[in-house]
């Protein structure tokens, strides 16, 4: 419910305290902040359904072709998967600390944490591109680019790798977008745009970043650990 700031005439409202960051159509800064975070949560629900389509396809095929999916997941290197998970959880921590620093109006800590988050995110993408995907390419495991697998269950393994590349590719794309947003935030923070009164862009980007971490938290076991490593 909008808190009923006394309905002063519209023209007067313009002249009264109207800090630069308060959009004209909001009654107060609280309403703008709540609208922003609710908007991001609703967007994250659409992202859940967006990844959900892939998870549904994965679940159906894992049920239909279990041996192929288990063999496919054993071809992945679980060491890099676990390392990537730790890196992403680290970046989630630094992002949370960045939001905390913004809440407590510590600009230097905010900028430091944001840069740390970006570095960890870049590390994740680095491990993913250089170590995992390039190895898969050399091992002819990339569907559509010279996929060949001599052993049994080749079609099912190719299906598994279709899912592997669609899911991790979509996740990596979201990471790249996240890094872009972080860069803009660092630039804005450096110019002193945020203080403990106005930090909703940081909070909202933090929600987005944590969501990407949650997607990876589910991707790691489903892709790397399905059917066990014994």
């Amino acid at each position, binding site marked *: 419910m909008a808190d009923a700031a006394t309905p002063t005439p519209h023209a007067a409202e313009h002249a009264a305290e109207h800090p630069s960051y308060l959009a004209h159509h909001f009654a107060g800064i609280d309403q703008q902040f709540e609208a922003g975070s609710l908007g991001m949560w609703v967007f994250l629900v659409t992202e859940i359904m967006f990844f959900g389509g892939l998870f549904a396809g994965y679940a159906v095929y894992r049920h239909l*072709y*279990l*041996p*192929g999916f288990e063999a496919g997941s054993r071809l992945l290197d679980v060491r890099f998967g676990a390392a990537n998970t730790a890196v992403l959880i680290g970046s989630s921590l630094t992002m949370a600390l960045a939001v905390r620093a913004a809440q407590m109006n510590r600009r230097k800590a905010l900028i430091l944490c944001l840069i740390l988050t970006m570095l960890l995110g870049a590390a994740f993408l680095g491990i993913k591109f250089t170590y995992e995907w390039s190895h898969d390419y050399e091992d002819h495991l990339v569907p559509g680019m010279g996929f060949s697998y001599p052993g*049994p*269950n080749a*079609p*099912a393994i190719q299906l598994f790798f279709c899912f592997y590349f669609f899911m991790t590719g979509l996740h990596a794309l979201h990471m790249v977008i996240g890094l872009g947003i972080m860069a803009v935030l660092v630039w804005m923070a450096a110019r002193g745009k945020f203080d403990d009164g106005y930090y909703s862009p940081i909070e909202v980007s933090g929600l987005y970043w944590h969501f990407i971490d949650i997607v990876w938290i589910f991707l790691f076991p489903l892709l790397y650990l399905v059917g066990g490593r014994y």
Partner: protein
Amino acid sequence: MIPHAIAAALLDAGQKWPGFELHPESASTIADGVDELHFFLTAVTLFFTFVIFTVIFYFMVRYRRKSEDEQPPETRTYLPLELTWTLVPTALCVVVFVWSSSLYFQNSRAPNAAMEIFVVGKQWMWHLQHPEGVREINELHVPVGVPVKLTMTSQDVIHDFYIPAFRVKQDVLPGRYVSIWFQATKTGRFHFFCSQYCGTGHASMIGWVEVMSPDDYAAWLAGGTRGETMLQAGERLFQQYGCATCHVADGSGRGPSLAGQFGKPQKLRDGQTLVVDEGFLRRAITQPNSMPLPNYAPVMPSFQGQLNEEQILQLIAYVKSLAGEERKTKGQ
């Protein structure tokens, strides 16, 4: 029953003005049941539409605005009325659901003594194969009064085998067997259509079901081309593609013996048990390693692409016939 009277009236109306039929022919055992449900639903639709139209017209005339500053009385929400027009439609829906679901369940169970015909849909024609070896394109000859089961698959995209006069329809999927059954009650020629969009020739993928008396059918079958029956074709392929080297009848080969396997449950290595039906055999031929057996190494090569759909059906017909010998050997 009233629907039969309506159906008969509509039918002869159709005869009088050709091209203006209102009721399709009903030429199979399930057609009348489906028509009864259809007439009931039509009656419900017409009743509610008639009620809504007349009530609205009455209100429109009775309460038309006479002067600009007319003051209609306050609207009182009247809970019992709201409950009635919530519960009555719900009850009606549940009744129709139970009626239609039981009818559907009944119609989907093919009788066990059904005569089997194999259908392969490919882009823009239907291949139909009788076990006795006769093959037809866009034509299906069946005896009247005998339940016929069609086991169908597609060679490329999704098609759909639809015989309006028998009220049966089933999408035909690539890579899988689907089946429908019907028992014709009238002789004559009835249309069948492809009713799932499949490309340029979707509209030309139609044909005729020719329902004949049992004697005419026997005569037609005898007159058919003297090709090898599906069993003989299957046996030839079984030798030609080297299946016999591994699948030796007494189980001494690298592969399991296939005698007597059809129709029995088969336990897989991961604990699943599946019934050995046409779909199981087709998957074993095209993707052998996706169903590893407990005590056999997954070394069987995939025949995907080497055998076309008709040949796979012939191989399966041959494996099904092996089931018979096993019972025979046990008999002696």
